[in-house]
């Protein structure tokens, strides 16, 4: 738990960073190495890591985390509009704003637990969503979404003497344009930082306390803790992660729409976390990458492509095959998503990481007849 795991933590971290940074290389054979998609991997990875700090460690299921994502996006776009196209202020302000929102919503929602907590977070997120569409239109620009315009003041840029061109300026990091690969790399760096912080939280006394709350909250109270500050801290941290993810969305594409706050978006991050394995370090990143990759693959198909694929079949069979497979792809890809969701929850409640562990367990069992206690101790470490 101490010395040995500290070492393996560093190994894990270095491996993780290397894998993320070399994504453009090793994703090439999969045809997934274009920046748009890799940006999504990183952004949703951050979102899921943050969600996991709350759900994975404390067991509190929030159904309203998309609200913080939306807040992050809006804040970032406003920073681009009012201050500068440089991404640094946008990132900082977004995280702070999302944190403030999370503090308020968390303070109220955490007065209840279980399903009541879920409903409260859902209610807050839906309120934010509905308001963003209606009354808050001056801030959110309603249905059309908040966009950059040529008339934006951008006071810092103006002060620095950045010339206003005839086309919309692009987001940048001290001049480096945040589109394409550079855009991916800023997301990647943020993901690595997010992962590192999450690892530190998991391995800190704070993380242990959160796990203890999940394990037996009543006992925590009799142990001399006021559990609410811990839960609130976890909630705010995970809200800030969502804010960071939201602002990165705006960095790679300076547009913010209210649909980002809808509860289906909250559901998506829940699925990512569960699919990868709630409460594990790597799981949420893995889950979000798999879902975004699958979305990319599945939703790209259309009927004519399907016909081509099943061209070798006799006519009748081809039609049936196309009809059946079109249930899963294209616009109907959500069907596949829902089905995956069910299969994971039914058969693999621990997610993909649990699957790995089980496979690993098969090998381990064969080479040593470890007692129940010892093998589970090993599981606790992996």
């Amino acid at each position: 738990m101490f010395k040995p795991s500290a070492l393996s933590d560093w190994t894990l971290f270095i491996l993780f960073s290397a894998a993320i940074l070399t994504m453009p290389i090793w994703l090439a054979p999969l045809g997934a190495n274009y920046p748009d998609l890799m940006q999504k991997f990183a952004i949703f990875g951050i979102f899921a890591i943050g969600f996991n700090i709350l759900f994975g460690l404390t067991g509190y299921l929030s159904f309203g985390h998309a609200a913080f994502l939306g807040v992050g996006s809006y804040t970032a776009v406003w920073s681009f509009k009012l201050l500068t196209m440089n991404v640094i202020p946008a990132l900082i302000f977004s995280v702070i704003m999302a944190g403030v929102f999370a503090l308020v919503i968390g303070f109220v929602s955490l007065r209840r637990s279980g399903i009541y907590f879920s409903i409260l977070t859902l209610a807050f997120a839906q309120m934010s969503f509905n308001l963003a569409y209606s009354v808050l239109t001056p801030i959110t620009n309603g249905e059309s979404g908040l966009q950059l315009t040529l008339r934006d003041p951008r006071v810092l840029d103006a002060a620095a003497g950045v010339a206003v061109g005839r086309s919309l300026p692009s987001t940048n990091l001290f001049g480096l344009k945040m589109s394409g690969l550079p855009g991916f790399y800023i997301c990647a760096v943020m993901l690595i930082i997010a992962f590192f912080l999450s690892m530190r939280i998991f391995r800190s006394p704070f993380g242990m306390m959160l796990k203890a709350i999940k394990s037996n909250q009543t006992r925590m109270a009799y142990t001399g803790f006021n559990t609410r500050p811990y839960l609130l801290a976890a909630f705010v941290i995970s809200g800030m992660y969502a804010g960071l993810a939201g602002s990165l969305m705006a960095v790679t594409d300076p547009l913010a729409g209210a649909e980002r706050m809808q509860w289906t978006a909250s559901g998506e991050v829940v699925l990512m976390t569960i699919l990868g394995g709630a409460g594990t370090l790597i799981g949420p990143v893995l889950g979000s990458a798999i879902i975004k990759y699958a979305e990319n693959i599945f939703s790209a198909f259309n009927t004519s492509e399907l016909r081509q694929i099943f061209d070798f079949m006799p006519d009748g069979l081809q039609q049936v095959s196309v009809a059946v497979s079109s249930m899963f792809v294209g616009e109907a890809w959500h069907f596949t998503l829902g089905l995956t969701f069910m299969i994971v929850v039914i058969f693999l409640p621990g997610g993909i990481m649990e699957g790995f562990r089980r496979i690993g367990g098969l090998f381990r069992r064969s080479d040593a007849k470890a007692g129940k206690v010892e093998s589970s101790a090993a599981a606790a470490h992996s």
Partner: protein
Amino acid sequence: MDAILLQILNGLDKGAAYALIALGLTLVFGTLGVVNFAHGALFMLGAFCAVTLNRLLTISTKIKDESVTFFDAYKEVPILEAKFPTWGPVIVDYSVPLAILIAIPVMLLIGLIMERGLIRHFYKRPHADQILVTFGLAIVIQEVIKHSFGANPIPQLAPDGVAGSANVGAWFGMGDNIVYPWWRLIYLGFAMLIIGATFAFLKFTTFGMVVRAGMQDRETVGLLGIDIQKRFTIVFALASVCAGLAGVMYTPILPPNYHMGMDFLVLSFVVVVVGGMGSLGGAVLAGFLLGILQSFASMTEVKAIIPGIDQIIIYFVAVVVLLVLPRGLLGRKGVMED
């Protein structure tokens, strides 16, 4: 005064839909202990029973249009109307209420399959797992419907006889300012009937007695040697019928689309929580209450004072109720309190 009455009436039909969905949700939650996020999908499936029946009844054929005399013109006419000109059109006209007859067996069957095939295995799993798996199921059902019926809403008509509006004000001698569509009145009455029937069933039958006992204390009922499992299945199927019928009758009010289930589910959940988890009366009360509140919040006068209130009122009320009354309006002690 008239305006207030009108708003109450306006809120009642939406409230009735909330109440019917929330009733089933609570029934399932109270007895089976399962949080069913796919319950909204059942409401939507009911609505699509009506759509399906209407499509079946209006399968058309081309017949010669006699009104055109100078060349041979053809028009599409439902086979039913062409073959049976006397009662065919009446059947087509009444397709929505007739769909009730179809929806009852269909929803019963769907409920049975769902409980046997999926829900049963989640009795003992954490609530989070229940939420997640039924959430997945809801998406699956929704996509199947979208795949088969398309993404656009499909308007359904109320029978011609009740297509107009009722001058409700005149009935009570309050002038002609309170007019209300007949169909919404019928929906309200229908909802009352279903709710009343459900309560009567639970109150006056031995089956209902066992179910109520199960809602109080599941383990004890099991210990009494009653096969609670079978009754759970029936309860679930009944809840599914409730939601389905609510959906069938709602189609002339809101053209059904594939995501209407989710839209209503989120609100119905809020309704259940406000009413108090596990309280049937609470679910019905909160359903009507929130429907009416929403209707008031949509008044221009109210929106002028608090802009946007119509968008958030239900959620706002839910937050306040949960913070002030942790168990909701009529919730019992010990439900969902870990």
